[in-house]
């Protein structure tokens, strides 16, 4: 598209405004020469980002003098509708060069916000200054404003309070100042720090701190909650009867600097020859929104040799300690962040005795296990050796087991006795053995047994009149008979 304002020009220079409000995007240009109906070919494309190329113009400066102080009112560079800097107005920082008109030596260079004051000047003196805007994050320095000069006024009778200092305890902020005159009363005011970087609002609206009105002390204590998290400015004014001083310098209060980090609560637990250390926030304290690093000092109770640990974790273990020894620990918390390096005080000292060493127990258990396995193994080996020994030197006289099985049966055993027994007794033994065998089967079924027994009794001459119902008695008799027969054999 054609660049407005740069068509049919006869000089090699052309002025144009940003094509759109988006000055952050790349613009490409090309040029050609025209004469009559002829035209040259297009030049090489030249590309640029308007914001990159833009120069910061001078700010507008307006000065006010009171007492030994000059107030500097600054309007940011560019017009109100300026597209180039409208999103950077809050990011501008202003640097100021100032000198006494009587000397050409540049005296002070300061970074200021619009509406800031320059303090501790000489009264009734002409000061001159120039200001330029900077965008330090883009490494851009603007051009200086025209030099402005102003006379400071005659010194006020009642000087303003000086040397404001802020400190804090857990609950309160304490603002202190110096004042040379007695019988003065003071009042303290505050306002939001962010208003300093908002231009053109005229909202530099100072507010009273309720506890700090008409006070006679050169300090004022007010609760932290009155100025919660943020950046504020404080100022003090002195009064004596009908006359009042000018306001003191404005003291910046960044609440972040006054964070109070409570000491951690440390506990220890002994685990064998190790100690487990637990670090916790103080009970009831507000949860810290900041990560803390804990510095833990650890020492053996009976010695002065200290070990130092820096831990981010809330619990950790210290290993390889002497068993049954008392160790002590204390710690403190550090907050490390930018310029706000803060530390808590040390916690209480906690001591704990280690238990018997872990390794000792392991050895005992391992020893018992090894001994047990060894004993079992030895017993097994001994038993095997004994068996071999017996086999070699005292071979068994028993027949092979399969034969022995048959031998052990009653009929065969009884057969071995045949030679020394009478015929009748042989019959008896066989019958009786059968009875015995049957008895075993029929012990549980008495009725059957009775029938069977009576039946066999009929065949046997000697025992036909025997007891018909007692199987156990029959067995006893059998044993008795066996004994008798063995006696007879012998």
């Amino acid at each position, binding site marked *: 598209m054609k660049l407005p304002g740069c068509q049919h020009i006869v000089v090699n220079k052309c002025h144009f405004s940003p094509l759109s*409000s*988006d000055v*952050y*995007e790349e613009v490409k240009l090309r040029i050609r020469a025209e004469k009559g109906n002829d035209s040259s070919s297009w030049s090489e494309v030249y590309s640029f*980002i308007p*914001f*990159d190329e833009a120069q910061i113009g001078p700010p507008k400066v307006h000065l006010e003098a009171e007492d030994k102080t000059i107030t500097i009112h600054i309007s940011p560079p560019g017009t109100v509708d300026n597209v180039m800097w*409208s*999103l950077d*107005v*809050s*990011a501008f920082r202003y640097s100021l060069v100032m000198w006494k008109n009587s000397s050409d030596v540049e005296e002070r260079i300061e970074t200021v916000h619009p509406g800031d004051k320059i303090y501790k000047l000489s009264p009734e003196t002409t000061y001159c200054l120039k200001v330029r805007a900077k965008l*330090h*994050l*883009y*490494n851009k320095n603007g051009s200086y404003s025209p030099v402005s000069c102003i006379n400071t006024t005659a010194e006020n009778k009642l000087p303003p309070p000086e040397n404001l200092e802020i400190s804090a305890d857990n609950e309160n902020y304490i603002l202190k100042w110096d004042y040379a005159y007695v019988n003065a009363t003071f009042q303290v005011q505050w306002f*939001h*720090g*962010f208003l300093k*970087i*908002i231009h*053109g*609002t005229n*909202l530099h609206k100072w507010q009273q701190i309720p506890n700090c009105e008409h006070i006679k002390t050169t300090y004022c204590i007010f609760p932290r909650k009155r100025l*919660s*998290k*943020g*950046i504020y400015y404080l100022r003090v004014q002195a009064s004596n009867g009908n006359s009042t001083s000018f306001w003191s310098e404005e003291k910046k209060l*960044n*609440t*972040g600097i006054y964070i109070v980090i409570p000491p951690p609560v440390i506990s220890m637990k002994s685990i064998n020859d190790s100690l487990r250390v637990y670090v916790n926030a103080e009970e009831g304290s507000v949860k810290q*929104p*900041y*990560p803390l690093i804990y510095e833990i000092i650890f020492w053996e109770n009976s010695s002065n040799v200290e070990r130092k640990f820096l831990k981010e974790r809330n619990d950790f273990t210290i290993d390889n300690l002497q068993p049954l020894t008392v160790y002590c620990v204390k710690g403190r918390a550090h907050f490390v*962040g*930018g*310029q706000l390096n803060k530390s808590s005080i040390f916690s209480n000292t906690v001591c704990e005795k280690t238990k018997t060493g872990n390794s000792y127990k392991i050895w005992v258990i391992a020893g018992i296990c090894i001994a047990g396995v060894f004993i079992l193994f030895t017993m097994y080996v001994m038993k095997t050796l004994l068996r071999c020994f017996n086999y070699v030197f005292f071979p068994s006289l028993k027949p092979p087991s399969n034969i022995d099985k048959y031998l052990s049966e009653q009929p065969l055993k009884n057969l071995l006795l045949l030679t020394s027994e009478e015929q009748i007794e042989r019959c008896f033994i066989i019958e009786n053995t059968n009875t015995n065998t049957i008895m075993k089967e029929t012990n549980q079924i008495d009725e059957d047994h009775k029938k069977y027994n009576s039946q066999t009794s009929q065949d046997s001459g000697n025992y036909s009149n025997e007891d018909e119902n007692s199987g156990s008695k029959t067995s006893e008799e059998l044993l008795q008979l066996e004994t008798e027969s063995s006696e007879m054999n012998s």
Partner: protein
Amino acid sequence: MIHKQFPGLVLVLLVFFVELKLVLLQQRIKEENLQLLNNLQTSSIQQCLPYRKNFRLPQNSVNFHQYPKGHVLAILHEMLQQIFNLFKKNISLGSREENHIPIFLTDLHQQLEYLETLLGLEAEQKSHAQGSKNLRLQVKAYFRRIHNYLESQRHSSCAWTIVHAEINRCLVFVFRLIRQEIDP
């Protein structure tokens, strides 16, 4: 012009900024907060749906994985700076009785100062300056679109509702970005 539901939104943002500090200092942001944000979508968004606009959050064009920590801080700083610019308009539009905006801007201001401290340390490593500048310009271009939209809509109630929703979206993006930075 202040939208009626602004206080609710500010509180959500404050929750975020508390978390933001945690994140900055290398702690994890909790997913619950993102959930909380979703739950707090106001009903009037329904009425304002016809006013929606794609502000082209520069999340797709920028692959943040490649960039060093200084760049991420720069993006974060630029975004907070621009959110501050956006909401500071409200304070000059006669909302003195609205207590939440000063609290919100105070918190933002402190965050910005803190980031500038961190960036001041980073600035010593000038080698990253060009890369982070281009990222900053992308963020600025995005906020320029938001400003233009508000002007074209004459700062109507619905326009602000849409912008609030967009800022929340932008914050979600920022937190994701930081999380990537922390847990690459």
